């Protein structure tokens, strides 16, 4: 056996980190904090996923049982960049309003990502698909208000391009509807989104947001060239969330490495891996 060249082994794993809005993230997974059976499950899953950026939602503080636990008691804000979302907003007005409240919460905590928002302007309650018109309007208003906007959108390349032009720090096309677990339904649209958004700007961060069901969905999105994947339900509702978090971490790394390595083209017919030359037999 050859001795292992650890220098080379390290080099093959080298990768430029993901930078969003001037902040460097060591993991390419952004993980949601919703729908876990317990805060303990959430905390362990986040830890095992390797993420350093997590999404949170903005909701009314409880007037009753106000002494109850807060999610921030279970999230180390010095370890995780907090990304507040505007989930549940169906108009640009509502999304801007919720974004400003999220910003105030983060400013009060002294967070480094206090100006960040994961913008969602939804079109209807059944599909949770984005409302493209409201999303464009809210992006423009939030950028003007100084926000670093990471914007959830469909996989439509034209809207994606317009969102970038309006100043979104990251465009985050959906693989499939939120929480659906259908994975990447239209890889060709994502390929075009990536091509358009990265044209002349290869470091522009494109994060596939929503729809992941299992580890191969993450690997596939990364193999397409996405800079990261944002997911929540696939971990939180897995039978074993902590183990699934480990799977997602491995899949994200595997997919990224495969993208960087460059896959072989698909071919209709076989090509032998063993040489034809020197065979002692001939095809019949």
């Amino acid at each position, binding site marked *: 056996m050859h001795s292992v060249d650890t220098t080379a082994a390290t080099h093959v794993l080298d990768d430029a980190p993901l930078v969003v809005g001037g902040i460097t993230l060591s993991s390419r997974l952004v993980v*949601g904090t919703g729908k876990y059976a317990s805060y303990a499950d959430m905390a362990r899953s986040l830890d095992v996923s390797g993420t350093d950026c997590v999404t949170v939602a903005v*909701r009314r503080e409880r007037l009753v049982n*106000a002494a109850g636990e807060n999610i*921030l008691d279970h999230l180390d804000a010095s370890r995780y960049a907090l990304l507040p*979302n505007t989930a549940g907003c169906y108009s640009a007005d509502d999304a801007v309003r919720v974004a400003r409240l*999220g910003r105030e919460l983060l400013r009060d905590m002294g967070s480094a990502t206090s100006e960040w928002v994961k913008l969602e302007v939804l079109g209807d309650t059944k599909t949770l698909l984005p409302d493209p018109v409201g999303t464009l309007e809210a992006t423009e208003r939030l950028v003007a208000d100084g926000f670093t906007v990471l914007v959830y959108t469909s996989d439509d390349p034209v809207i994606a391009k317009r969102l970038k032009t309006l100043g979104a720090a990251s465009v985050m096309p959906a693989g499939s509807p939120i929480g659906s677990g259908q994975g990447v339904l239209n890889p060709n649209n994502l390929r075009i989104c990536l091509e358009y958004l990265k044209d002349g700007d290869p470091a522009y961060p494109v994060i596939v947001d929503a729809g992941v069901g299992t580890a191969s969905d993450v690997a596939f999105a990364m193999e397409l060239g996405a800079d990261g994947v944002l997911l929540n339900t696939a971990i939180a509702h897995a039978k074993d969330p902590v183990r699934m978090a480990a799977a997602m971490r491995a899949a994200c790394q595997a997919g990224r490495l495969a993208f960087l390595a460059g896959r072989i083209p698909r071919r209709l017919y076989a090509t032998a891996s063993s040489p034809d030359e020197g065979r002692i037999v001939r095809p019949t």
Partner: protein
Amino acid sequence: MCPGNEASTGDLTVTVNGVAHPAAAGASLRDLVEALGFAGRPIAVEVDGDVIPRAALADRTLTGGERIEIVTFVGGG
């Protein structure tokens, strides 16, 4: 609020997170936040659509009828 009980619970009524809530005349937003037990907790406060930073809560005197939202972070994707 119970009718006729205003004098003992407060002279004003504000709406907090969609629920009518009594407040004493001259009370500030900070007084209200403290009375609700939210002082020192991670919250953000909005009054009639405007975010009020924590440092400005004491300067805002309630006049009655305000629609106040007090929010925090919860789990979400």
